[in-house]
């Protein structure tokens, strides 16, 4: 019974923790601009993250070491360094976006300009990273993130023509008002939001923090196979809300407050309170994950002691990197950069660096020296992962040219 409860809690946490600032912005802006014509990308993205997160979790559970720790050892210091630099840069952009997202959600209930709230949020993020137990932190913000299910309630309350909605999502086309390039650019943004690299770093490092072993492989599978698809449904609900409420009014999503507007107009004040709490939890949880990921990847690459499972004095350099990352992101945030633009660039650029993150996972998950001969990838999984690797490379190659051609999707 305790085991079942633990698995259920893990799944709920996976659902609630699936959405972050990138997903909120990408799903709402594509829903408002492209209706449901890019819904298929969410499905493609979630299958990709399922495939690779399962591998990362399996590797961590079987050898007790997270993926980034193994990248340098297995693929050499040069590849590891390239991976580290790209991942750290994107992670910093994502962290800035998440901290700004928390500040924006607080500003919507306090009327205080979000820029003034950023230092306070940064301090809170650091305090939680420093003081709160890893499991508590994961559960609290993951479960609070379930408040975002109010988007699904909103869609249900609108009562759309479900057949039409399904037909729109399954018969995608480039809208007349858009070009193939903007369609592809926003598709890449959605794909990047679904497969953000920090998710894998955090997932595999978290597995080690939680002390996963061979016995936890089942829980790993259930988390990714059940939690992630349900999280993707949440993403689709956000997209559908924007499609049903904002698109008919020609509203494009440039602010986080607009993401919550369909819920307020359909569900009312209670819905607005719940969605803002959900946005706060989702962005705060992601800020914690990205802060810790900054520490994880640097410490793991350089071979320093890392993690929250021990006292901070046992992993001082790891905690210093986490602190510096939070300070750096907060400083970038208070310059007044547009948080939504930072979010868009972080997810699009993460798409450009995806092969660097996912290729090593595929290599290590096939290496019996790390996972044992019984737990290497099967043929089907390898075929699927290889197809995804090709997609990742194509996406990475196309990202920067599309960014230039579309002037950042404008």
């Amino acid at each position: 019974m305790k085991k079942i409860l633990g698995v259920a809690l893990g799944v709920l946490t996976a659902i609630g923790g699936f959405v972050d600032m990138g997903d909120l912005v990408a799903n709402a802006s594509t829903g408002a601009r492209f209706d449901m014509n890019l819904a298929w990308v969410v499905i493609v993205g979630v299958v990709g993250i399922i495939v690779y997160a399962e591998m990362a979790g399996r590797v961590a559970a079987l050898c007790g070491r997270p993926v980034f720790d193994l990248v340098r050892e297995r693929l050499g210091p040069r590849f590891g360094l390239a991976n580290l630099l790209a991942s750290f840069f994107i992670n910093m952009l994502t962290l800035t976006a998440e901290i700004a997202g928390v500040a924006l959600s607080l500003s919507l209930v306090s009327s205080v300009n979000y820029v003034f709230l950023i230092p306070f949020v940064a301090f809170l993020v650091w305090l939680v990273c420093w003081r709160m137990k890893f499991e508590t932190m994961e559960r609290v913000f993951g479960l609070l993130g379930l408040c975002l299910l109010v988007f699904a309630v909103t869609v249900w309350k609108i009562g759309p023509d479900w057949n039409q909605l399904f037909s729109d999502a399954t018969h995608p086309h480039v809208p007349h008002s858009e070009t193939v390039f903007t369609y592809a650019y926003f598709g890449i943004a959605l794909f990047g939001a679904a497969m953000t690299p920090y998710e894998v770093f955090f997932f595999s490092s978290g597995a080690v923090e939680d002390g996963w072993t061979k016995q936890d492989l089942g829980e790993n599978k259930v988390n990714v196979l059940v939690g992630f698809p349900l999280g993707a449904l949440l993403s689709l609900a956000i997209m559908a809300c924007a499609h049903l409420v904002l698109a008919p009014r020609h509203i494009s999503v440039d602010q986080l407050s607009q993401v919550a507007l369909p819920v307020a107009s359909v569900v009312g004040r209670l819905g607005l309170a719940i969605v803002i709490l959900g946005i706060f939890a989702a962005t705060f949880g992601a800020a914690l994950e990205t802060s810790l990921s900054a520490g994880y990847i640097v410490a793991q690459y350089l071979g320093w002691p890392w993690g929250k499972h021990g006292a901070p004095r046992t992993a001082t350099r790891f905690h210093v990197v986490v602190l510096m990352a939070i300070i750096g992101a907060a400083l970038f945030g208070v310059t007044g950069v547009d948080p939504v633009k930072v979010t868009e660039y972080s997810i699009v650029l993460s798409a450009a660096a995806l092969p660097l993150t996912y290729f090593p996972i595929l290599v290590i998950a096939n290496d019996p020296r790390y996972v044992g001969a019984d737990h290497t990838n099967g043929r089907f999984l390898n075929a699927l992962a290889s197809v995804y690797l090709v997609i990742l490379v194509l996406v990475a190659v196309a990202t920067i040219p599309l960014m230039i051609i579309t002037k950042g999707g404008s």
Partner: protein
Amino acid sequence: MTSTARLRSAPVRTIEQRRQRRTAGLAALAIVTVLAASCSEHSVGPARTYDDYERKSRTSAEVALSAVETVRLLAETSSHGNAWGAYTGVSLSEQEDTLTEAEGDYASIQPPDQRSDDLRVKLLDLLGAATDHIAAVRVEARRGNLESLEQVAQPLTNDSAALQQFLNSIKR
């Protein structure tokens, strides 16, 4: 190993390798600079032809239409008691800032010819009116009169229609 021996055994970088490293460093710096610059809102470039100017006019009108419609929906939502003051006030200020910036950016673009002048006058009139009407809604919201917002936002219906008409009148 002494420091001299270490220096001797260290791989010597050729001029070509140094040049490649410098080029890679400059490219990385350029990417970061471009990204930082593009993260600031509504950056505008020059318009050299009428077509170019027309395209920029369309973009500005679309931004304005989105802001106007967002404010209309906000006003409707708040008037029906579905949103509280802080959310409404902050959201309205954001839309007002968006529109003001779009208006300022558009006004700063040099129109290349007489046709562009006509377009400029027409759109700036629309943007100015919409900005005034959004400001009126924001003032009312900040005074705490949320229930009357829908009424105060009434002129925005005409602004929205006029912007749509403007968008229909210029080519995509």
